[in-house]
């Protein structure tokens, strides 16, 4: 039996050695894993340091949803700044900032923004360092009626939920001060597909809504940098889920809509 065990271990070792070698050889190709639907720009960071250097500019002919997917194989902190000529729905400013360190494979910094038609530009601030940063972007036109609905929400007319969503909570944030206050509890007896839409018109102070449950947490559904969370669809296991509000010196309204 000793012989059998040693033979199995030796053969395993040889197979394992080959697999480890193959893995190492293909690692470089696996570093960035930007899905094929994205167009991508890869910047080599080793030639120079950059401060808000323009990488590229795009023009949106119609209101569009723009998704960014950013990865880097280098540990240093890099900042990717996106500046739009037109409004970015759910944001008080026309600027988006991504901070990224080392994120490869299936890890990334990503975000989807709905922008009105016009130009947007992408800038990079980085040290001179070994490594690269890959920026993926995908633009999809938004249905005019859908854009109109979201544009109304962006401009403060919050009671415009998507079809099938019902209001479960609304409040005026002015003068309200709280930390992690439970504002709505969702109890599920079975595994359920749900949709969440959370909107605020707050333009100052802090207004953050988190969704906390046993099996799923969504931190910062809305926050000062992003006032619209629209149609976040997910599957929840049975249990209790709470919407928690943290609010200080905020203004405007808050609406929560659910689809079950």
């Amino acid at each position, binding site marked *: 039996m000793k012989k059998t065990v040693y033979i199995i271990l030796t053969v395993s070792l040889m197979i394992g050695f080959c697999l480890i070698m193959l893995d190492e050889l293909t690692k470089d190709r696996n570093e960035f894993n930007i899905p094929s639907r994205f167009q991508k720009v890869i910047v080599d960071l080793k030639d120079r340091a950059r401060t808000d250097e323009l990488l590229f500019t795009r023009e949106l002919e119609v209101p569009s949803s723009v998704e960014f997917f950013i990865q880097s194989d280098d540990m240093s902190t890099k900042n990717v700044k996106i500046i739009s000529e037109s409004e970015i729905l759910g944001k008080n400013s026309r600027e988006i900032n991504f901070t990224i360190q080392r994120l490869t494979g299936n890890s990334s910094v990503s975000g989807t923004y709905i922008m009105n038609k016009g130009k947007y530009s992408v800038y990079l601030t980085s040290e001179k360092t070994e490594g690269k940063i890959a920026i993926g972007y995908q633009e999809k036109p938004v249905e005019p009626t859908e854009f109109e609905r979201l544009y109304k929400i962006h401009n403060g007319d919050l009671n415009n939920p998507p079809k099938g969503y019902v209001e479960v909570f609304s409040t005026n944030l002015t003068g309200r001060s709280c930390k992690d206050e439970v504002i709505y509890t969702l109890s599920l007896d079975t595994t359920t597909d749900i949709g969440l839409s959370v909107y605020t018109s707050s333009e100052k102070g802090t207004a953050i809504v988190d969704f906390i449950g046993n099996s799923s947490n969504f931190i910062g559904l809305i926050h000062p940098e992003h006032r619209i969370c629209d149609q976040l669809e997910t*599957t929840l296991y049975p249990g209790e889920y709470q919407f928690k509000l943290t609010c200080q010196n905020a203004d405007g309204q808050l609406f929560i809509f659910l689809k079950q």
Partner: protein
Amino acid sequence: MIKQQSPTITQANILFFITAVITLAGSAFFQPKLGIGTNLWINEFVYILFPPLLLARLNGWPVEDVYRFRKTTTRNKVISIFSGLSLWFFAFYISKITHVLLDQIGALENPLQTSPSIYQSLLLVIGMIVLAPICEEIFFRGLVQKAYEGSFHRFGFVIAALLFGSYHVLNGISEVIPAFILGLGMGYLVYKTDSIATSMLFHATANICAVLLGGAIDTATKGVIPAWLHAIAFAYLGLSVVLLRSLKGETQSNGNYNEVYTDKRASAAGVFFFVLAAMFFAAVGIMEILVRLGILS
């Protein structure tokens, strides 16, 4: 003077503690750099398999006798495979229940992780179904159980199972009790048959079930424990008990080892390392609880 022919409790405890600490530290260092599969291979070959083989080499022990590399009957092999299958179901069920209870304290967030490459996935699967059953059995049933059988005789396998279970706290608290239950089954097989081949077959079967069935059941039940799983789990527990009790005992070929055994009780160093290991595992468990409570990130 009679030369010691078996591992002592002191040696087992020292190696167990060192292996546990190095596994945690090594995994923290190597896994992000080399991948989850390669890291498992390092764990199995370097930290788990190497120490007992080195100990045997240094002491001039014949591993066939000391770690019970002995043939067994086909009947015992078949029983090992089927008891591994049935007891895995019960252990899986306990793991699910523990998970649900722990999630009451707080759920562990799943950080964004790089999904393993195809090669890392293959390394992981081969590591689980080939290496772990061989390496971990040599360590826990070969070395640790043998050492404890010197003092605790028929209960040696229970202590080895306890250590095997506590070692799995490195994979999460929810794995401790299931690993202890499987450890009991594997320990009993070795105790009864005097062959490590039986526990290796049991271990391989249980790990194959974990790879093939664990994910499938999780997906099918969407994290909920369905009523049928309660019934099946206890039915399989009963079946595994029946199977294990039907084993035919082998003559312990080294039945006189107690006479040449020089360390029937753990020395102060042995007790010290046992306590150290217990504190280490408690610390790992407490860390997980603190993370679940949101106190640590």
